[in-house]
């Protein structure tokens, strides 16, 4: 569970950083003569964004169900009543 949360957090961070870099690169391409620099930043942002999306935790509705089975002790007095 902790690993899942860490992965989800890392994915979220990459998505946010990717969006930031992508938009920054787009701005530089659009508004400045530094086309190469802007394109490089834009592509780096796109790469981060894609990696972040791949690390995304699936939404609860689509996530595979995990069932935790508790150890059961059979009590002869309660067996049959439960």
């Amino acid at each position, binding site marked *: 569970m902790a690993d899942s949360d860490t992965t989800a957090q890392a994915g*979220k*961070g990459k998505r946010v950083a990717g969006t930031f870099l992508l938009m920054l690169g*787009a701005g530089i391409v*659009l*508004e400045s003569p530094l*086309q190469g620099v802007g394109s490089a930043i834009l592509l780096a942002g796109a790469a981060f964004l894609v990696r972040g999306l791949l690390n995304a935790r699936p939404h609860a509705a689509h996530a595979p169900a995990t069932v935790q089975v508790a150890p059961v002790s059979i009590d002869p007095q309660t067996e049959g009543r439960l």
Partner: protein
Amino acid sequence: MDHHSSTFDEAFAVAILAFIAVTATVSIGSYRRRATGAADVGGSLVLGSGIRGWYMENLRPFEDLCVQWHISPTMLSCAQLVGSIVVAACYARGMLFTGGWLLLFTGTLDIIDGRVARRTNGSSLRGAFLDSIIDRYADSISLLGLAAFFRDSWVVWPVLFAMLGGLIVSYTRARAEGLGAVCRVGLLQRPERYVILGFGTIFGALCERLTGPWVAGQHYSMVILVIVALALLVNLTAIQRAVHVWRSLGNGQHG
């Protein structure tokens, strides 16, 4: 803007708008799925506590990185100041989209530094004082860049008026707290100002490429509308705070 054709500009602006639309749609979905009450943050009329909490949840990985890498709140404040100088340079050169995006980034640094200070028990009186000074410089420097861009137009006056209003909004609170009053009201506090100016210049720059001037033949019409609205609302906020403090102080004698 003669480094590429206007057709490229238009197509690229449409592509950016499409990306923003998709990102906004996905973000609205994640905001709705967010557990309510996940983050205890204050809100205002313009930016409610829900949206602030959602934004801070998205910043959580960067807070963790700052804590893990021992990046102090003071370093974040200094980064905010440097970022504001870059924002001003972008605005002054007419790079309003890039400047607006970086303005949102510097505003985010301002949010993160306080949260990192609380998490690392690094809050101190000196840190809070330095943060306040840097905030005032950062606010003013960004708007000075915009004033430099509009220096040959009447728009320079609303920009300077907005800058003045922003300083008075902050001063009113500081003075009120010095007199023992609490002043946390206000229509446009700093985060709201960052959001309005940041997104205003981003969409204004894209709009300029797609539609050209559409208000009285003025270039960057949307940006101008945003600046005028900001100037009015910020000064209204200053008056709102002054009235609030005036009432809360009552007839108390000074000294």
